[in-house]
């Protein structure tokens, strides 16, 4: 029991147990679709309970407890503090609509049986919740690996398709490389005392290069899960392969557990932060953001496009964390607080808007059976609900006021801009350049989202089969509306949200962004009103008011007559849907401007070609630059090692004997 009588940890444990129970129930009748759908609704209700528990825990002091599970002498330690509570709330908020959507989404006869998906899905949720409350390295790793495994099976739901199996394998591989780094990181953090509880790690004061080793192992390990450069390659493969609710959950929530881990290690377990860690994290984050958004602009598969956009958003979050480290190391707590708030706010935003967009692509996929942007178009007429909700997500992720993406962007720019002269003079020069790179990434993101929305929902249908498209079912629609309202809420009431985030700031860097007794819930002014302020609700109200007044005034003063005719198009008589921009065409300017980013193979037809074919392949330079050489090296080592295989038993015994001798000699 917690000190205040409310057992938040017991509540979280109960939620985890309920999710596991729901999963096991799904296994009992795996082919009974109606039963499984009801289970998913139960999962959504449990998620709402988790939100309530987490929001209460956010305002309470940290609580910890021990569960008599696990190995002998290694019980599970659990702890819930403001950081865990915020991410648990995020998990619950994003998951409740996703579960509701899933209850209408999964159908029989598509790969894995629905009941089995239900089990994997809820095990995945339970593992994520456990990651967030784990208080020792052992439980953390167990939960982390369960999360990776459960999501691997979810990604390979349609395991009969070879590409999907390949994508799943790549995901599993990178997840394990990352997990190894995290394990090593915990090994460094315990400082040779053998105490793997987080409270033990907090009390260790590492010396010399060890804190840096710990930080970079964490950055590498959690970066692999989050999709930082150059470990991002699994995202654009795994997201298109997974069913849409799973993509939403992975992109919206699972990537955030990596952010949670990075924050936990950097600001909680390590007792100091060095300024150059911040510079490296900032640079890496910005490179990731730019790379992700430029690649998103040239994608032709809607889910791949969103996957690259997730890479961009993770880059922005990591850049904000880097900035927070930089300020914290230079003892500027208020600015560190603003940067950290921007990171957490963006994580929260991304959980809502990316889930919303992935679910919208799921509805489009079900309605049209088409993932390629080149074969969609004009769906706003057939799917008005999905189109309206997706528009909110599109505007939010493009960072436009008065929606939520803009709030975190605004906070982050404030942190960049009010960099007082830092003691490291070249960093002071670097920060404005970093701000420029960030703004560029956000501006290209708007381009990407116009492409995404315009090609899918606007214009004319590019295929005749789209005429049969239908709007999403009732539960799916409800889920989309809830997420869209969430985006709107986060955009319009930032002060209330930051009030909660400030609890995390107080925990991690002992400062708050909102001054004590801040009462004006309309006005967001982190430093001082004269320096910078933003009132999204007023901006929203003014725009809505102007629109309404204009509509009424035009009707009153002039008239509102309207008639329909053929499109004019400068008077050209022949117009077909093929004359619209394709996804490739829309991305062409980006391809031209950022040419050095891409590995491109182009085939242009000659003017005399009777049957011209235009072909362009854009591939990730990191794949050829890093992964293929590593794979080749591994194969070469394996083939050398293979020389001693397939021999007689005597050879193996000799090798074993020699190894033993060597070990005895070196390991005395």
């Amino acid at each position, binding site marked *: 029991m917690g000190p205040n009588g409310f057992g938040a940890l017991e509540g979280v444990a109960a939620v985890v147990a309920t999710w596991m129970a729901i999963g096991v129930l799904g296994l009992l009748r795996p082919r009974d679709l109606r039963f499984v759908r009801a289970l998913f609704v139960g999962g959504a209700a449990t998620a709402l309970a988790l939100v309530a528990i987490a929001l209460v825990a956010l305002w309470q002091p940290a609580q910890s407890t021990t569960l008599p599970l696990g190995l002998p002498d290694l019980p599970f330690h659990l702890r819930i503090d403001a950081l865990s509570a915020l991410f648990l709330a995020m998990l619950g908020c994003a998951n409740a609509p996703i579960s509701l959507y899933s209850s209408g989404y999964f159908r029989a006869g598509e790969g894995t049986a629905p009941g089995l998906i239900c089990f994997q899905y809820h095990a995945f949720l339970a593992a994520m919740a456990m990651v967030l409350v784990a208080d020792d390295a052992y439980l953390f790793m167990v939960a982390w690996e369960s999360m990776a495994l459960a999501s691997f099976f979810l990604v390979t739901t349609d395991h009969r398709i070879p590409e999907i199996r390949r994508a799943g394998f790549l995901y599993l591989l990178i997840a394990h490389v990352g997990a190894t780094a995290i394990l090593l990181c915990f090994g460094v953090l315990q400082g040779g005392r053998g105490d793997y509880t987080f409270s033990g790690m907090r009390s260790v004061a590492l010396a010399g290069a060890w804190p840096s080793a710990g930080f970079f192992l964490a950055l590498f390990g959690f970066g692999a899960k989050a999709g930082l450069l150059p470990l991002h390659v699994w995202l654009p493969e795994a997201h298109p392969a997974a069913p849409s609710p799973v993509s939403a959950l992975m992109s919206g929530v699972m990537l955030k557990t990596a952010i949670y881990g990075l924050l936990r290690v950097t600001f909680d377990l390590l007792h100091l932060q060095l300024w150059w860690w911040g510079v490296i994290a900032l640079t890496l984050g910005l490179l990731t953001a730019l790379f992700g958004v430029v690649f998103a602009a040239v994608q032709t598969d809607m889910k791949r496009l969103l996957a690259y956009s997730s890479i961009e958003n993770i880059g922005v979050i990591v850049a904000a964390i880097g900035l927070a480290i930089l300020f914290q190391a230079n003892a500027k707590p208020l600015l560190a607080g603003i940067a950290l708030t921007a990171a957490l706010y963006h994580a929260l935003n991304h959980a809502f808007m990316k889930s919303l967009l992935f679910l919208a692509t799921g509805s489009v996929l079900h309605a049209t059976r088409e993932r390629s942007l080149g074969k969609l178009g004009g769906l706003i007429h057939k799917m008005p609900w999905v189109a309206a909700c997706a528009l909110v997500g599109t505007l939010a992720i493009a960072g436009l006021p008065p929606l939520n993406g803009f709030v975190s962007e605004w906070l982050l720019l404030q942190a960049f801009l009010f960099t007082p002269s830092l003691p490291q003079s070249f960093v002071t020069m670097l920060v404005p350049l970093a701000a420029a790179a960030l703004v560029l990434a956000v501006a290209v993101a708007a381009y990407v989202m*116009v492409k995404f929305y315009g090609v899918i929902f606007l214009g004319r249908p590019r295929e005749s089969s789209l005429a049969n498209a239908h709007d999403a079912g009732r539960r799916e629609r409800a889920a989309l509306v809830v997420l869209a309202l969430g985006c709107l809420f986060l955009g319009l009431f930032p002060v209330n949200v930051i009030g909660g985030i400030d609890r995390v700031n107080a925990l991690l860097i002992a400062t708050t962004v909102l001054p004590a007794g801040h009462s004006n819930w309309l006005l967001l002014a982190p430093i001082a009103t004269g320096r910078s302020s933003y009132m999204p609700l007023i901006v929203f109200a003014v725009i809505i008011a102007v629109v309404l007044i204009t509509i009424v005034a035009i009707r009153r003063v002039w008239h509102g007559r309207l008639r*329909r005719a053929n499109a004019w198009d400068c008077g050209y008589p022949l117009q077909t849907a093929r004359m619209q921009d394709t996804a490739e065409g829309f991305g062409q300017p980006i391809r031209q401007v950022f040419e050095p980013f891409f590995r491109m193979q182009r085939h242009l037809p000659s003017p005399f070609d009777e049957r011209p074919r235009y072909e362009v392949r854009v591939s990730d330079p990191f794949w050829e630059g890093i992964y293929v050489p590593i794979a080749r090296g591994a194969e070469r080592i394996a083939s050398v090692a293979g020389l001693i295989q397939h021999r007689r038993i005597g050879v193996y015994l000799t090798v074993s004997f020699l190894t033993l001798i060597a070990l005895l000699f070196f390991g005395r």
Partner: protein
Amino acid sequence: MTLTGLLLQILQVAIALALAPLLVGWVNQCRASLANKRPPSILLPYRTIHKLFVKDAVVAENASPMFRLAPYVVFGAMCCASAIVPSLATDVPFASAADAIALVGLFALARVFIALAAMDIGTSFGSLGARREMFIGFLAEPALLMVLFTASLISGSTSLPTIVDTLAHRELAIYPSLAFAGVAFTMISLAENARIPIDNPATHLELTMIHEAMILEYSARHLALLEWASALKLFNYSCIGIALFVPFGIAEGASGLGMLAAVPALIAKLAVGGAALALIETVSAKLRLFRAPEFLGAAFLLAVLGMLVNLLLGS
């Protein structure tokens, strides 16, 4: 927020709405004179807007509600922007609702809506225009923010009234960083307002147009709103330029008399600015589309240079 404050705020927006077409008319007159043509009446934009409002709206058969809503949203965003820009007085109540970053965000909102509306009908010109507009936009937007950041660094604030107050009180100080920023801002304004050398507001030559390509399918009241909004955009950009680089004469504090006294100064400055714009447009040639990144890249670099100069010299 007091009632007087609200009234003054509405007055400022009303003056912006009223003056914006006049500015366009003036620029067109100057352009015609410089090209040795007989200039059209300065009141022509008002007549055009009125004429368009009177006409019946014709909308393509497959237009979605998005297409019909977009002009209103664009107009709303521009009105909102004109309430933020300190064109007449620095202390209007709405100014604390949105700062320089939010102002850039509002321009982006308008751009995204107009680009989406252009893609809605599904014609070749519409999507071509949308793509080009977003292309110019993602190059110009960071540069504009960098210019505003340079001014923010001088005053230590992103709030536009504070920036203007700070700059207006140091008449004799010379800011080398603002010189860079000023050149960059001019280049960005040309691009953002669909002017030569990036776009040509007078052309309907299909292969070169950007802004015109997006609004091809619009007619009557929707077109009137878009024309008015783009006039308002030019007005807003001019006022930002005036506020940053020649802020003298803008009323400090919020009083009705001070604001009215600021109107002649504003008109005089706009007249000079408009004539300069016409001159630039007359003496330069339109760039090929793929030269635009070089042009805007130069603007971006100048703005960043301005910022670095500011950090190095501390002014």
